[in-house]
């Protein structure tokens, strides 16, 4: 096979997301067989889509960031911050729902900005910086909840003015058990895909992860791109926190724990390279879908739910292996 042919082969058949799409079909077939009609029914479909949606929203932000060459381990903690912020602003400070949501969005954007600024200014690996913010934010969330209310689980959002509309927009399940969060998930994914593939920012994101020095040499402001990515990522986590606070009409200071890892797994399963510069949002969407199908499918098949984590870890290893093959092929061509 010539060099050119192997290049187009790589792009056509092993391109980011393609392997994951094949994987998603196989997993659907697996559980359609093992769990039977419970999995194939409308209710079954709704259950795995609903499970995939919040993770899918996180995965969109994480995918953009990973393509840009960075990690954010603090997304799960930002989910916790976001939900708790909505609850404290409403129940403790007396704001109504929509101003509380606006304030929470500003707070989360600020957190993302600080994450990005720290990474860009100190040149430290984002893995370490955001590992630190993971603990700082989680600790602050618990401390703030206890400080204000002496509890870490708050409820009663449904008594606050503005809740009905917020519930309809963010927390309802309008059709056949399908939650509106699925619309937010696919909306975020479509918007991110457009930005990535059709705007100059998208070009700069690929370059920031692929070869930042080359991008700097042609005048791309890599620092700005990365800070923007951390803020986008925090915004996605913020949205998930708000959706869950509205849906459960309350918040738990521990909400979102481990979600940062699940999101990274979904993104990597979707074919995005851990080292950056290569990947798609569609892949991340499929990765989240696989996550949802496995999580619900295992329960519906009557398998002990403990096996979920084993399955997840196994799929991650497999996905990384496939990704590396793609990278080796792309580099061998050079």
């Amino acid at each position, binding site marked *: 096979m010539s060099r050119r042919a192997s*290049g*187009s082969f790589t792009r056509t058949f092993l391109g980011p997301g393609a392997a994951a799409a094949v994987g998603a079909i196989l997993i659907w077939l697996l559980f359609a067989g093992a769990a039977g009609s419970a999995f194939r029914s409308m209710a079954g479909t709704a259950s795995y889509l609903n499970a995939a949606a919040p993770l899918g929203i996180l995965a969109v932000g994480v995918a953009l960031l990973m393509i840009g060459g960075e990690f954010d381990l603090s997304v799960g903690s930002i989910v916790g911050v976001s939900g708790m912020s909505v609850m404290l602003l409403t129940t403790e400070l007396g704001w109504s729902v929509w101003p509380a949501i606006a304030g929470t969005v500003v707070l989360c954007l600020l957190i993302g900005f600080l994450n990005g600024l720290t990474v860009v200014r100190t040149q430290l690996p984002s893995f370490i910086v955001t590992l630190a913010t993971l603990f700082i934010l989680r600790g602050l969330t618990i401390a703030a909840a206890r400080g204000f209310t002496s509890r870490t689980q708050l409820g009663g959002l449904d008594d606050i003015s503005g809740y009905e509309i917020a519930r309809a927009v963010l927390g309802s399940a309008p059709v056949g058990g399908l939650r509106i969060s699925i619309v937010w998930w696919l909306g975020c994914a479509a918007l991110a895909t457009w930005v990535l593939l059709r*705007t*100059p920012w998208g070009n700069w994101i*690929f*370059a920031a992860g692929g*070869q930042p020095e080359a991008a700097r040499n042609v005048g791309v402001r890599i620092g700005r791109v990365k800070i923007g990515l951390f803020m986008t990522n925090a915004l996605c986590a913020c949205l998930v926190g708000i959706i869950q606070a509205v849906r459960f009409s309350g918040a738990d200071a521990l909400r979102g724990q481990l979600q940062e890892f699940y999101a990274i797994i979904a993104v990597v399963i979707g074919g995005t390279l851990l080292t950056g*510069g290569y990947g798609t949002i569609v892949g991340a969407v499929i990765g989240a879908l696989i996550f949802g199908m496995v999580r619900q499918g295992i329960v519906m098949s009557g398998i002990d739910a403990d096996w979920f984590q084993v399955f997840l870890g196994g799929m991650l290893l497999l996905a990384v292996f496939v990704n590396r093959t793609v990278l080796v092929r*792309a*580099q061998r061509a050079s």
Partner: protein
Amino acid sequence: MDDATLPVEAGAAQPRLEAQDKPHHEDRDVPRLEARDISMRFGKVVALENAHMAAHAGEVTCLLGDNGAGKSTLIKVLAGVHPPTEGACLLDGEAVHFLSPREALNRGIATVYQDLAMVPLMSVWRNFFLGSEPTTGRGPFRRIDVGRCREETHTQLTAMGIELRDPDQPVGSLSGGERQAVAIARALHFGARVLILDEPTAALGLRQSERVLEHVRHAADRGVAVVFVTHTPHHAHPVGDRFVVLRRGRVVANEPREALPVEKLAALMSGE
């Protein structure tokens, strides 16, 4: 045209050329880009000592030297990466003080680095327009004019004799010589007046090197002032109009092609 550039003797301190300090754009003898008495020290390490060179429009000025001779430092000064410890850069006879590569680029000084010119996993057209993407639409709907990018990339590369099967193929799938050609085509397309090429033929085979040298000559023929950095006299000699040889941070020769046969060039580099 070469008369404005005085040959510099090894280690000789250059007298300041006060008469040239005022700008004269219309004068054909004014070099397009000139490095005057550049010294560069990193702590106690002296990377450059009173280095002087000039690049004229329509000419290929070769910058030669062994590893560690100071070639990279000198082009980084010219490209705006490092401000020099002493001395000044002159663009069209006017002193310029660049604080970043972007500023130099905005004034028409484009630099193509050997390994850092392209993003291998990105497509050819995305690389070609990186940092200067043409857009269409307004406000939040402003987007890259992808059709124009693909078409323009194809046209520009065809003009350089590169048959691109698909502008969407990743740069990583191009050969080293083709990548240099894409980088040169990009610089010319965006109106480079000075083109600095950092070792464009290093790590290339004979045939690919020849192709790249053709592109170097072609750029100069279009009126660009080309600075061609290399450590291979046999690559420099066929395309160069003038040769500047660096050894341990000093300019040991600055001669037109006629004065330097290729054997002498090699000898100067090694200091024999």
